[in-house]
């Protein structure tokens, strides 16, 4: 670039940066995605140029005035093979490259810090494990893998951060995850990109990337209450989960200490790994997620606990590695009579005599 006058180069770069053709690259995956994108642009340009060249040059060379008699040609298997195999080859390269990127983006690393995001008409609520809540904003530290666990409380939404090149649908009824590692401090757009009703275009916000120190300061200053896990603990007791899920000898439900991440045998013979999605489903749809050796007496909490509540419960169970506090609550709580021997508030009475097998 030495032969371009510095003035001209300054002008060009100023013009280009003020009229961007792509968003800032603010995450680790962004340059990787841009590389594939620009490869595709290049291939498209080349392909388009070839097509235009062919059409234009043939039009000029074989214009009627110049070439009044057409020569009938049936075809050419060689040419057919060429323009079948070369595009196919290029497309397959893009397929493989794209697939690698896709798996990378949708497979969070084990050490990623988790932030829950609940989408609802028409706002995003981000819940940090430490209890910090944000609306239409997301503060993240630079240089650390961050996983987002998304869910919607009503309709489909889609959480999009163009600068990070990540996007994931927030679906009602199940968790979806995406992860990124921010590399540049700054404020970037956050959009909802799945049409969700009247104020779809207002469901936007800011992603603020901070240095790790600034992030710690922000965490400390923006929490005013308990962490998610503490909220979850409170919910766990108030919903009387501890009536069955404790470590007593006659407990009607499995002990949840250390259950997160373990392999669990279900009563239908399947074995599952207990992750966020499993925990959520077993709260909302328990009869399909019965641990082996237990009866299907757990009531569903569908309709009794919001998605944020579920998130709090999940976060609590995830961090549950000791039974001490739980036993404390059992000792100090007295249960209303309706709990004894019946499935719970959600359904009608079960037949008497349904106990742990």
């Amino acid at each position, binding site marked *: 670039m030495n032969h371009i006058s510095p003035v001209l180069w300054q002008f060009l770069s100023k013009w280009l940066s003020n009229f961007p053709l792509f968003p800032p690259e603010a995450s680790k995956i962004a340059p990787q995605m841009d590389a594939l994108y620009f490869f595709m642009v290049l291939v498209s340009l080349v392909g388009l140029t070839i097509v235009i060249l062919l059409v234009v040059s043939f039009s000029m060379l074989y214009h009627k005035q110049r070439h009044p008699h057409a020569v009938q040609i049936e*075809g050419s298997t060689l040419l057919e093979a060429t323009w079948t195999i070369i595009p196919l080859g290029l497309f397959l390269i893009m397929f493989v490259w794209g*697939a690698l990127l896709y798996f990378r983006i949708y497979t969070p690393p084990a050490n990623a810090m988790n932030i829950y995001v609940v989408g609802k008409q028409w706002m995003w609520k981000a819940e940090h494990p430490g209890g910090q809540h944000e609306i239409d904003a997301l503060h993240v530290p630079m240089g650390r893998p961050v996983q987002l666990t998304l869910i919607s409380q009503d309709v489909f939404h889609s959480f999009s951060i163009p600068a990070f090149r990540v996007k994931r649908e927030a679906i009602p009824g199940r968790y979806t995850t995406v992860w990124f590692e921010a590399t540049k401090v700054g404020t970037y757009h956050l959009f909802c990109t799945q049409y969700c009703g009247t104020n779809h275009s207002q469901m936007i916000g800011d992603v603020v990337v901070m240095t790790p120190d600034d992030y710690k300061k922000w965490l400390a200053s923006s929490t005013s209450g308990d962490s998610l896990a503490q909220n979850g603990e409170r919910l766990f007791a108030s919903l009387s989960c501890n009536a069955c899920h404790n470590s007593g000898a006659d407990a009607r439900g499995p002990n949840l200490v250390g259950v997160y991440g373990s392999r669990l045998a279900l009563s239908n013979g399947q074995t599952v790994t207990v992750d966020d999605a499993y925990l959520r489903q077993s709260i909302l749809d328990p009869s399909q997620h019965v641990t082996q050796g237990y009866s299907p007496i757990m009531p569903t909490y569908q309709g009794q606990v919001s998605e944020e509540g579920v998130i709090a419960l999940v976060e609590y169970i995830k961090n549950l590695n000791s039974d001490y506090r739980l036993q404390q609550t059992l000792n100090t709580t007295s249960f209303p009579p309706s709990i004894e021997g019946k499935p719970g508030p959600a359904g009608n009475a079960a037949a008497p005599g349904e106990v742990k097998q």
Partner: protein
Amino acid sequence: MSAATIVSLPDQSTARVPKMNFLTRENGLLSWLLTGDHKRIATLYLISITVFFFIGGALAGLIRLELLTPQSDLVAADTYNKLFTMHGVIMVFLFLVPSVPATIGNFVIPMMVGAKDLALPKINLLSWYLYVAAGIMMIYTMAAGGVDTGWTFTTPLSTHYVNTHVITTGLCIFIAGFSSIFTGLNFIVTIHKMRCPGMTWFRLPLFVWSNYAASILMVLGTPVLAITLVLIILERTVGIGVFDPAKGGDPLLFQHLFWFYSHPAVYIMILPGMGVISEVVSTFSRKRVFGYTAVAFSSVAIAVFGFFVWAHHMFIMGISNYAALVFSLLTMLVAVPSAIKIFNWAFTLYKGSITFETPMLYAFGFMGLFTIGGMTGVFLGATGTDIHLTETYFIVAHFHFVMVGGMLMAFLSGIHFWWPKWTGRMYPEKISQLAAVVTFIGFNLTFFPQFILGTLGMPRRYASYPPEFQVLNVFSTAGASVLGVGYLLPVLYLTWSLKYGAVAGNNPWQATGLEWQVQSPPLTENFPEIPIMDHEAYDYDWLEHHQQQEVASV
């Protein structure tokens, strides 16, 4: 200038449009409303489709006007949502899906196979009535307040969260779907059972092959849309949550069912257009289409593969990574036949004798714009880039490039190509070429900036947007006004030509194909006697010989 065109008209001082033709055979409104003649039905369709195209276009104009400014200041957000929903529904179901098949296909396919009509004329008429019923329902829906779910009717938004006219729109699309099914059914039966003696499959014009492939998609895919709409309507009325997770249903089930039709639908929309391009490129380079067999089979390949790629609309929706992998691979495979066609058409020009009449200009526009649109489809078919580009203006640009830059240009190419056959009149060439160029320029100005907007991250279906996106949006709206002019012009001069256009004669383009060997406009029964096909498709040597015989025998 006569060397620069292949147009060959009869002597205008003595030529007359034939007195007895399908337009003059019977008079009176009932003779049109109760007709079985495929050409009259095609004409009825042409008029109705044009009406809905301009309604959809007006909605597009309003959308682009709103998007001139970042704020939602022209219309309320709810209204904007209705605008883009109605624009999508009308353009997809009431314009693009029936455009080439129901107008040009209806008109020309029986003649191309050497038959006197389609196999089921009453079903053909029924198909038009269903279309009109759907259209009237759509107008009612708009007048009654419209629907704002997006043309994709994503659940649970469309089932439980809007109180607009989802059921009426669903019924409207259901009826339009049956219109489409009957058209496709008619084509398949006609092509299988009514080819004239000597007309083997590989002597059929490629337009027939393309419409055949599209008809298979119509017949097999549309019923799935029908049942999906039934389920949505039931869910809204009865309240069952088959798509509602709170009640045990699955919103992703809707997505699978919806896209199982809607992806083949895009091939229903584009394949007939590709058929037009084959005819036009061949005629205006005086050459058989290069690689006839490859082009014919690629149409069928697109139809078959098109059924197996639907989940590429769902890559970020929580389908498993492995499912995404499979659908991405299949998407790459379905892209290849389209590439094959583009190259075959380009090589048809090789050693041809090329002229640039209006249909050919539109065909060139198609080839360039469809290449861009198709390539950007590959951007989206690769799962990694799809994550960034999906649900943004990149998608909007992609599908407008293939549908408008591709299909609509092909439709206009076909209308201009068969206009002389249809009406017996030529349209004024200079203004039509101007309109083609204006359309091309306007189109690029409108939609190319949207690729950049999408890459920058601007989401689709946004009534208001961050201010840094305004410059590109202004470009896009400016282009839209030019595009509007380009589309209005043909309505004007084509209507003018009905009375004042030059008399076309049988074969103004010197084309092969059985439809060009009969009078313009054709007789109601097309052929006095069923012809015998004794030559290959696009046989210009036969045509020359045939014309010499005509001269000799007079």
